[in-house]
C-alpha cells in the first residue's frame, strides 16, 4: 500500500475544467453525456443530486424525501444505523434497485444533470458509468485476469486490455501481490485482496462514480486500512460514495457526510468535519457520540 500521497487529495476539488474533460474524453460512453449541458447543472461540481426522493419496498417506505447533492471527485460517506436506507439510496444511484421487483422509486435523482429514472435512460448504460463495490467481496469464480477483464469484455473495451488490467490492478494497490499469478483463481486470494480485486474490476472500465456499500465491513483491520487508503487515492480520479457503519472510517476518509436515521430520513448532510465536530441536529450528535443507534 502507498500512503504517502494521501494527504494531497484534499486539495483537489473538482473545477469546471475537470468535469468538462470527463465528459469530452469519453464520447462513446452511452447516451448520457449528450444530456450533460453544463449550463443546466445546478452547481458546477455536483455530479449526483436527489430531489424529494422516495423509495418504497412494497408498502414499506425505505427513504423519505431525500435531498442530497454529491460533489464530484470527493468522498461522500453515508452513515446511520441498520435499516436506515443508506444502502437503498446507494442502490438508487445506479438503479440496482430495479432488480428488486417490489421496489418503487419516486422523485428525482440526477446524474450529470439527467434524471436517471427518466424513461429514456437505459439502466445498463448508466451502470457502465457508475461502478459498484459490494459489502462482501464477490469476485467471479474465474482467474484474477478474467475478473478484471469481465467489465471490459462485456463493454467491448478490449483494446490494450493487458495494459488496462495492469493499470487497474496498480490503482487498486494489488498489482505487486498478483502480477505473477494472474491465471490463478480469484477465490484463492485473501478477503482483503478479493475486495481490492473487486475495486480494480470496478475501475477497470473507467467509471465516473464508484459506489461502495460497506466495502470493509467483512475485513480485518489491516485490510480495512488498506481499503481506506485506496479510497482516498481513488477520489483523485473518481467520485466515491461510500456507505459505512464505522463512524471513525467516515471521519477518516470522507469529505462530506450524510447521516440517515431510522425511517429512511436524511437528518443532516454537510462537510465531514462539521458533522463530527459540531452537528446542527441533536439527534445526529446523539448518534455520533453513541447515545443512540
Amino acid at each position: 500500500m502507498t500512503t504517502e500521497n494521501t494527504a494531497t487529495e484534499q486539495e483537489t476539488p473538482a473545477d469546471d475544467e475537470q468535469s468538462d474533460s470527463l465528459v469530452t474524453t469519453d464520447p462513446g460512453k452511452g447516451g448520457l453525456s449528450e444530456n450533460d449541458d453544463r449550463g443546466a447543472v445546478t452547481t458546477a461540481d455536483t455530479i449526483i443530486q436527489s430531489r424529494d426522493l422516495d423509495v418504497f419496498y412494497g408498502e414499506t417506505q425505505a427513504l423519505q424525501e431525500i435531498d442530497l447533492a454529491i460533489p464530484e471527485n470527493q468522498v461522500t460517506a453515508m452513515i446511520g444505523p441498520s435499516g436506515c436506507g443508506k444502502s437503498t439510496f446507494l442502490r438508487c444511484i445506479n438503479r440496482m434497485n430495479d432488480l428488486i421487483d417490489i421496489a418503487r422509486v419516486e422523485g428525482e435523482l440526477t446524474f450529470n444533470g439527467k434524471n436517471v429514472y427518466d424513461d429514456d435512460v437505459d439502466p445498463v448504460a448508466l451502470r457502465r458509468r457508475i461502478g459498484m463495490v459490494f459489502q462482501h467481496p464477490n469476485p467471479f469464480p474465474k482467474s484474477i485476469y478474467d475478473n478484471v477483464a469481465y467489465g471490459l469484455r462485456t463493454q467491448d473495451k478490449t483494446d490494450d486490455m493487458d495494459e488496462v488490467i495492469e493499470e487497474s490492478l496498480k490503482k487498486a494497490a494489488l498489482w505487486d501481490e498478483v502480477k505473477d499469478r494472474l491465471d490463478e483463481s480469484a477465490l484463492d486470494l485473501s478477503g482483503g485482496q478479493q475486495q481490492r480485486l473487486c475495486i480494480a474490476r470496478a475501475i477497470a472500465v473507467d467509471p465516473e462514480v464508484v459506489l461502495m456499500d460497506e466495502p470493509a465491513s467483512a475485513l480485518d483491520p489491516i485490510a480495512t486500512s488498506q481499503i481506506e487508503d485506496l479510497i482516498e487515492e481513488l477520489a483523485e480520479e473518481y467520485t466515491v460514495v461510500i456507505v459505512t457503519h464505522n463512524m471513525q472510517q467516515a471521519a477518516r476518509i470522507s469529505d462530506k457526510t450524510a447521516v440517515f436515521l431510522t425511517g429512511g430520513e436524511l437528518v443532516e448532510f454537510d462537510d465531514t468535519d462539521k458533522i463530527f465536530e459540531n452537528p446542527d441536529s441533536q439527534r445526529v450528535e446523539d448518534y455520533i457520540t453513541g447515545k443512540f443507534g
Partner: protein
Amino acid sequence: MATQTETGFGQVSRLQGTVFKYLTFGASLVGIFALGVLLAYVFWDALGLDSAGTVWYLTYTVTLLAPLVGFLAYARDRPEVTAGALEVVGLTLAGGMLSFAAIIVLIVIAGPQVWFTYFLTVVAPLVGLFLYGQYNREATWVGLAMLGAVVVGPIAGTLLLGTFGTVAALLGAPGVYFLSLVVPGAGLAAFLAADRFEASRRVTATVGVVLPVLAIAGVPLVDTVPVLARSVWFAVLVILGLPVGYAVANTARQPARRAALALPAIAVGGFLVGEFVVGALGAAQPSPWLDWQFLTSPTSSLPANAGLYPAVIGSVFLIILVSIFTFVFGVGTALYLEEYAPASGLFGTATRLINVNISNLAGVPSVVYGLLGLGIFVNINVQFGPVVYAGIGAGTVLTAALTLSLLILPIVVISAQEAIRSVPDSLRQASYGMGATRWQTIRNVVLPRSLPGILTGTILALGRAIGETAPLIMIGAVGTKYTPPGGLFDTLTAMPMQIYTWAFLPSEEFRYGVVAAGVVTLLIVLLSMNSVAILVRNKYQQEAY
C-alpha cells in the same frame, strides 16, 4: 439427560443418537445389499459362470485374482501408486465407453456420409473457433461465432448433405474416419505431449506421426478379423488409445507412480496366461450369453442366436434425441423461470402456478405420458386450413423420443432450476453492477456456474428415460425388430422393449440367460453415457475453479 456426579462433569446420554445412527446405517445397507444381490445374479446368468469347472476357477484365481490382490495389498499404503492405478483404470474405462458410444453414434447411426458432412460444417468450425478463442483470449466475438456455428452449421450441413456425401463416398468410410478421427487425434496427442509433458519438438513431432502410422500399420491385421471394420479400428485406436497412452505416459514419468503400471500388466498378462493354461488343460469354461454375437445380431427364435443389436442402436438413437430435446427445452424453461420471469404481480402468480405444475408433472406415472404421446403424436387427425396433422406414426423413433422427452422434461426443469438457484446472488449483482446486460450475466456468470448441476440432473433424468418401457408400449413401439432404425420416421425397438419381450417367451434359456445378457448390456450403455457426461461435468468444474 445430564446427571451430575461428585467426581466430574457427569455423563450425557447418547443412547437415542446411537440407535438412530445404526438404524440409518441399516437402512442404507438394505438398499445397497438388494442392488448388489440383483447385479450379482444378473451378471452370473449373463456371463454363464455356472458352467465353468473348478479347474477354470482355480486357474484364474492363481493367474489373475491372486496377483491382483497382491497388488492391492502393495498399493494400500502407497497413495501415489493408488492414484496412478486409478488414473490408468479410470481413463481406460472412460476411453472404452466413449469409443463404444462413438462407434454406435458416428459409424452405425450417422454413417460416413452424414458424419463427414456434419464434421465439416459443425464440429470442425466449432473446434477451430474454440482453439482460436483459447489462443486469442481477447477475441470476444468467438463465443458469439460459436453460437452462430451451432445454429448455421446444422442447416448448412443439411443443405450440403448431397455434395459432402458424394465426397465422403469417394473417400470411402475408412478414409472419412481416418481424416476426422485419426488426424485430429494425432494433433491432440502432439499438443498434449508438448503442453502437459513439456516434450521436445522432436518427441512432439514423433508422437504426432506415430498415431497415423499405427492406424495404417494396423489395417492388415484388422482385415484378418472378420467382424472388425477399419473404421471401427480407427475409432477405437484414437478414442481408447489416446486416454490409455496419456495415462501410461503420465504414470511412467513419475517415479513414485511407476509401480502402478504393474496393474495393467497383471490384468492383461494374467488373462493371457489363464487362457493358455485353461486351453492346455481342457477345462470347462463359462458359456456367456453376453458375447460379441449377442451384441451384433438381431433377435432370433433360437436363444443361442438371439442378439440385441437393433435394440441397442434404437436405444442410443432415442437417448441422443431425448437429450437434445430435454436439454434445449428443459434448460430454456428453467432459465426463463429463474432469471426472466417476474416474481410479483399477475405474472408472478402465473410463474408460481407454472412452477407448482412442473413439480406435479414430475410425479405423473410414465404410462400416463405414454397415453399423452399416443394422443398427440399417433392417434390424431386435425386440420388447420390446408394443413392436415395426422401424427408422426405409431412406434417411430421421433414419436418415442418426443414422448420420452415429455416424460423427463419436468425432472430436467426442476433440477436445472435448482442448479440455477444455487448460483449466489452476489455474483449476479456483481455482474449487473459492472454494467452487464441480463443476457451477458446469464451467459458469463449463471450458466458456467450452474452447468455441472444442470448436467447432473439431465443425466439422472436420461437414466430414467433409457429404462422406460411403459410409454414405448403405449405408443406402439414393436417388441421385436430385426434391423436398426434407418431414420427418424422408421419404427424402432429399444432395449427395455426387447428384454420385456424375451421375458415372456416360453424357453427358460430366453427368460434367464438372454434376458440377463440384455439387462447387463442396458446397464453398460447407461454407464457409458453417464461416464461421458461426468467427464464433461468434471471439465466444467475445473474451469469454474
